């Protein structure tokens, strides 16, 4: 009995070390998403390039797609355009952009101008690659808030019935795609 007690501090120490060690390899940005398994929230938002076209959750149904929250102001988003274009061209991944507009500060003479934004987006997509079927313009970030978006880039996998199946905070790179998102995307895309 007393010999057993002798080992308790060692066991406690090892347990604590393991716990702290696992913390070193965890991603602090990783948090539980509240939207997974739920349908897309209601919205009706214009297309970025063609504002007459309105997109709703209904009009997006029918095929699994990757929803990418992004903006040209976000360097990480620009950096992942190339790899996502590759996904579109080589694997046929259907990617839809949700354009996240930064708030303008009128005090600094900033105003929202759709024509300028369209031009900037177009030139950006030309130089970095264009992975998008189309872009939805989230002017006041209402849909982004309903999705639980905390910044850009973020990604959602939405199945053919409009149910959100995955939520990834951060960029998509080959490793993230292969290990985390591709299995989910393929699982839902393969469903008849």
């Amino acid at each position: 009995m007393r010999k057993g007690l002798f080992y308790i501090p060692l066991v406690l120490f090892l347990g604590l070390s393991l716990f702290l060690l696992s913390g070193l390899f965890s991603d602090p940005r990783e948090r539980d998403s509240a939207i997974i398994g739920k349908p897309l929230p209601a919205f009706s938002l214009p297309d970025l390039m063609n504002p007459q076209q309105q997109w709703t959750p209904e009009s997006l149904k029918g095929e699994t797609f990757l929803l990418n929250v992004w903006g040209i102001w976000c360097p990480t988003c620009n950096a992942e355009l190339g790899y996502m274009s590759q996904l579109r061209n080589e694997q046929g991944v259907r990617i839809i952009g949700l354009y996240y507009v930064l708030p303008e500060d009128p005090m600094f003479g900033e105003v929202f101008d759709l024509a300028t934004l369209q031009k900037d987006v177009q030139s950006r997509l030309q130089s970095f690659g264009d992975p998008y079927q189309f872009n939805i313009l989230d002017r006041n970030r209402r849909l982004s808030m309903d999705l639980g978006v905390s910044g850009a880039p973020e990604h959602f996998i939405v199945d053919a019935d409009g149910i959100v199946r995955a939520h990834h905070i951060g960029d998509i790179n080959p490793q993230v795609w292969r290990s985390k998102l591709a299995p989910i995307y393929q699982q839902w895309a393969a469903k008849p």
Partner: protein
Amino acid sequence: MKPLIALLLLVSFSVLADGNKELLTFESEEQRRLYAQLTAELRCPQCQNQNIADSNAVVAVDMREKTHELVQQGYSRQQVLDYMIDRYGNFVHYQPPLNRITIWLWLLPALVLLALFLFQLKRRAGQTALRYRSDQSAEPAPSAAKAELEQQLDNIIDRYRSNKP
């Protein structure tokens, strides 16, 4: 001199501008208090470990605006919290709910305390029993005597072991 005046003007105007931006109006003092309380206990999902009142991340600004809007509409504290937790998960509130996982935060310290208490109690009982037995002039029960002899033997062995270089 002129550039200095220009700079002073610039600085004073920018301070004015900043002050104007966040002036919010409320219908009642109660709503103002509720808004202050909510923005202090909601956590910014982007810049971790700041509440949305402290953070100037886009999402925190949006959440502040939304909180203001909901408070104006007469939402209660719990309703606003539910609205945010619906979107950003339990992460967004500094007071996590009691569930299967978080219950251990409360149970574990209590259990450890209880275990230590029981351990101490047992040790005390053992010591008094030993003292009581050595005080007795009468011959202790044979089994107890045997146990005590064994204990002494253990002690001797231990002493020899620890003396070994």
